[in-house]
């Protein structure tokens, strides 16, 4: 089971990243929980300087840009191994 978090205060790019993450999860057919984190107090617990950020199983894998769906898939499969 993957625990995925999208960090961001609700800007356009954060929404884009969240929907891409959902799509990657569905395409992979893995069990996962995608959660949007919009609270700054929660966001700054991760080593992040610019949003959006993607956290997979507690580890920040991308920050400051929207990765492609293929990249997200790679992050997810890496976390599954």
């Amino acid at each position, binding site marked *: 089971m993957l625990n995925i978090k999208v960090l961001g205060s609700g800007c356009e790019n954060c929404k884009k990243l969240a929907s891409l993450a959902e799509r990657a999860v569905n395409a992979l057919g893995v069990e996962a929980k995608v959660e949007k984190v919009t609270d700054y107090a929660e966001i700054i617990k991760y080593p992040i300087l610019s949003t959006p950020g993607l956290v997979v199983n507690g580890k920040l894998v991308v920050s400051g840009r929207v990765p492609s769906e293929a990249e997200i898939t*790679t992050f997810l499969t890496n976390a599954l191994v």
Partner: protein
Amino acid sequence: MTEFRSADPPRPWRTALTVGLSAILWIAAYNIILPLANWIAYSALGLERGSRLGEAVAFFLYDVPKILLLLSGMIFIIGIIRTFFSPERTRALLGGKREGIGNVLAAALGIVTPFCSCSAVPLFIGFVESGIPLGVTFSFLIAAPVINEVAIVMLLGLFGWKIAGLYIASGLMIAIIAGYIIGRLKLERYVEDFVWKVQRVQPAESEKLTWPTRVERAWGSVKEIVKKVWLYVIVAIAIGAAIHGYVPEQALASIMGEQAWWSVPVAVLIGIPLYSNAAGVIPIVSALIEKGASLGTALAFMMSVVGLSLPEAIILRRVLKPQLLVIFFGTVAVAIIITGYLFNWIL
């Protein structure tokens, strides 16, 4: 940001070839649009040379593709440069710098570091927490939005490199001076208390990127920005073309010219709610200048549009107490107004 694995293996030769071919196509297109616009307006549509409608139509048909081509080309180059800078690297570069030199460096890095005002909070906390002085942090936070890449390209396309350079130089000056003043005022007590208590893991160092990845990212930012602004560009150039063709010369000199002392502060005030619409504002401003509005007033207006934004103020309220927020915006607004007067006076 710790690791990056491209979905496809990098293919440097293919990337170089694609970029080279695109550059040739770009140059060809850039050289063909002027004769093409004139041909459509005066031959295909049969409009009379020198007539108001003919002038306005030819102006529109030339300026729209010119600005869109310049935008894609320049945003691509800026996008490549920005892959060498990340907020993490900028923070590392600013660490341990004194005020003064730190303000100058922060303002310069504000141009090349990718930044979105929605990230202002984590960035502010990250900078302050790593010991970067408050004033230096503000120099960065002012320069990043004030020196806007879309505005640079529009100014370059509509006014030429001198005005574009003047805009960059005055944006830098404003960021350096306003940040330095805020630093001297010792306002640390007006930063929300929780900011000083944050204990965080150090951000990882920047990722290693290959050239195909840099090109891919830069192209991504071209698509994103062009998608966001193309409609504004077309509408604004249409309005600009109408002004160009129909408003008499010098009609605006009395209200937007140098004689009207109040025009600079009024322009700055009007600019505040027009947040982030540099693409839509500059073609109109360009037409207004042609009709007698003064350049300093116009530059102040543009900087207010991109640099003083209410959404950003609301976001920064999370980390700044109201007093500091007011001082921050007040200092930047005053600096922009002074710049406007300065250019009205020297140009």
